[in-house]
């Protein structure tokens, strides 16, 4: 992968205490399955993002473990019930050890 994947995140605005909000995320990544043969006939080595985690003020909210069946440029949405202001942090972990991070400031009215 030539460029470092940039995550994109959508969180609804105007969150009120008690709301359950849907967070949507996307990240550009080929998700090479390791199940494919290249043009030279040799298997192309696996390289996927294998884990996505979301924490709020350091506490776990949601986690996804992805296998090679997850599509390229993976999309992940999840729900989250913020009860206070804080920071929603999302981390995508690559097979090669790299981590891609996004943080969103959450304000509850």
């Amino acid at each position, binding site marked *: 992968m030539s460029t470092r994947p940039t995550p994109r995140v*959508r969180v609804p605005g105007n969150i009120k205490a008690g709301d359950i909000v849907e967070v*949507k995320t*996307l990240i550009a990544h080929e998700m090479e399955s390791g199940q494919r043969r290249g043009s030279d006939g040799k298997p192309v080595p696996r390289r996927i993002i294998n884990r996505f985690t979301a924490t709020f003020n350091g506490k776990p909210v949601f986690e996804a473990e992805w296998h090679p069946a997850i599509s390229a440029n993976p*999309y992940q*949405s999840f729900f989250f019930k913020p009860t206070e202001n804080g920071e929603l942090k999302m981390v995508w972990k690559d097979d090669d050890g790299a981590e891609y991070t996004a943080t969103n400031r959450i304000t509850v009215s």
Partner: protein
Amino acid sequence: MISRRHFLQATAAAHALSLASGLGPLGRAAAQQRLTEADILRFEPVGQVTILHVTDIHAQLVPLHFREPSVNLGVGDAKGKPPHLTDAAFREYFRIAAGSADAFALTADDFTQLAKSYGRMGGMDRVARLVKAVRAERGTDKVLLLDGGDTWQGSWTSLQSKGQDMAGVMEALGTDAMVSHWEFTYGEERVKELAEKSKVAFLAQNIRDNEWQEPVFAPRKMFEKGGAKIAVIGQAFPRTPIANPRWMIPKWEFGLREDDISKQVEEARAEGADVVVLLSHNGYDVDAKLASRVKGIDVILTAHTHDAMPGAERIGDTLLIASGSHGKFVSRLDLDIRAKKIAGFRYKLMPVFSDAIAPDPAMKTLVETIRAPFAVELSREVGRTDSLLYRRGNFNGTFDDLIAQAMLAERDAEIALSPGFRWGGTLLPGDPITFEAISNATAITYPACYRMQMTGAQLKDILEDVADNIFHPDPYFQGGGDMVRVGGVGYAIDVSGSMGSRISGLTLLKTGQPLEASKAYTVAGWASVNEATQGPPIWEVVQAHVARQKTIRIEPNTAVKVTGA
């Protein structure tokens, strides 16, 4: 109004169906009576709201012949039930007399003979006349006009104007809302452009952008008519990206989204809807299943499968209306709404007999203006036909046989494959084959007639795959059109079989030998959903063949043997 023809009218007391009058007033007309516009419009109003429904017009601006199917098999729960009835069984169910106007409009046998008595059907100026008459009778504030889609595609003028001709006509007709399917074959940009500039609400609860899964179009709209709040939820054809080229709509995702329909119903009720209408392009069997599973829909206006039924069907608390295709019918549904429920209704499938209905002058002018630049091209006679040329039916139609023969001859192929589209006009024996007639059966945005090698095994896979899309016992797993048409090859099909086991006895007609799984055959076809398919447009192929033959005669096709029905 002026009737130029005698409409032989049998005395079929179309009493009927427990639910509705259907073509009742026509049926009650005495034998030998002239059929008049007044007969077609005659209707004893009920309640405070009238819904008018047209669908699957396929861009037919002027009257034409369209023969209903003689083979329309239902599988699973749909077997033997309307709309999967044809000819005598259809007439018996809906109490229609053989030889009557209703029989001509709704069944296939004796089509050639009856066409001479009853003439062409449809024409947007006639449709406009009926719509205006109902509005005048009921009051515009009580009438809602809804279009079930497949409106912008199916003719040369629509192809050349990229749907603009029909978009303009439907707007001029005062259409309140529409849904869509073939519209999407003009591509994302064009659909958005036409939808955004039109006064007709373009509804689709089941389309999402495939990046963020957000809705692309408004899912529903609330209308106030006759003092009642009517929520119209729009459902685009859920299988569009499978049945038609996905590359034309690369950013959109469709699907049935049954749960989302339920959510729309709940939201509409919460907003105070008195009546909830699903304006659907799912196809009849899908809507019948949906009606049994999703609660709270009062009316489903069905489309896609081109079924025309002269009576409303009721599934649970939901009424299903099937308004036919090609401008042949305008459905009128009067509703008596009390305490947010349908307390009573009356329904009539109004047949648009073009000789019995006076054209609306304004629409006539609009249609003429649209067609004028193409008049010479459209009326050009390419050849003539000695045979009835029709398309609709589950397997080969004679018009498809003509297209298949054209591909075999003009593309020097052993086998031809032609799509099982449900649209396209019918020509009577003795009719000229004009360029317009050819384009009415072929005018699509991906017309390339390819020529390539396929093995016997691949051909079988294709037939099996398409057969499963039409004969899967669960309608939610069905998609697309009728069975793919074949030329140069014969086969047997057991429609009750399962995926991969329906097709047998594939035979190359030229040699009478079975198709060999590993042997490659030269195949010509058109309407490939793959991008950048190479070949001349199919209308040129058909045109060249007809011009060479001068007179077309199609022998009965016995190459497809059907069992399990």
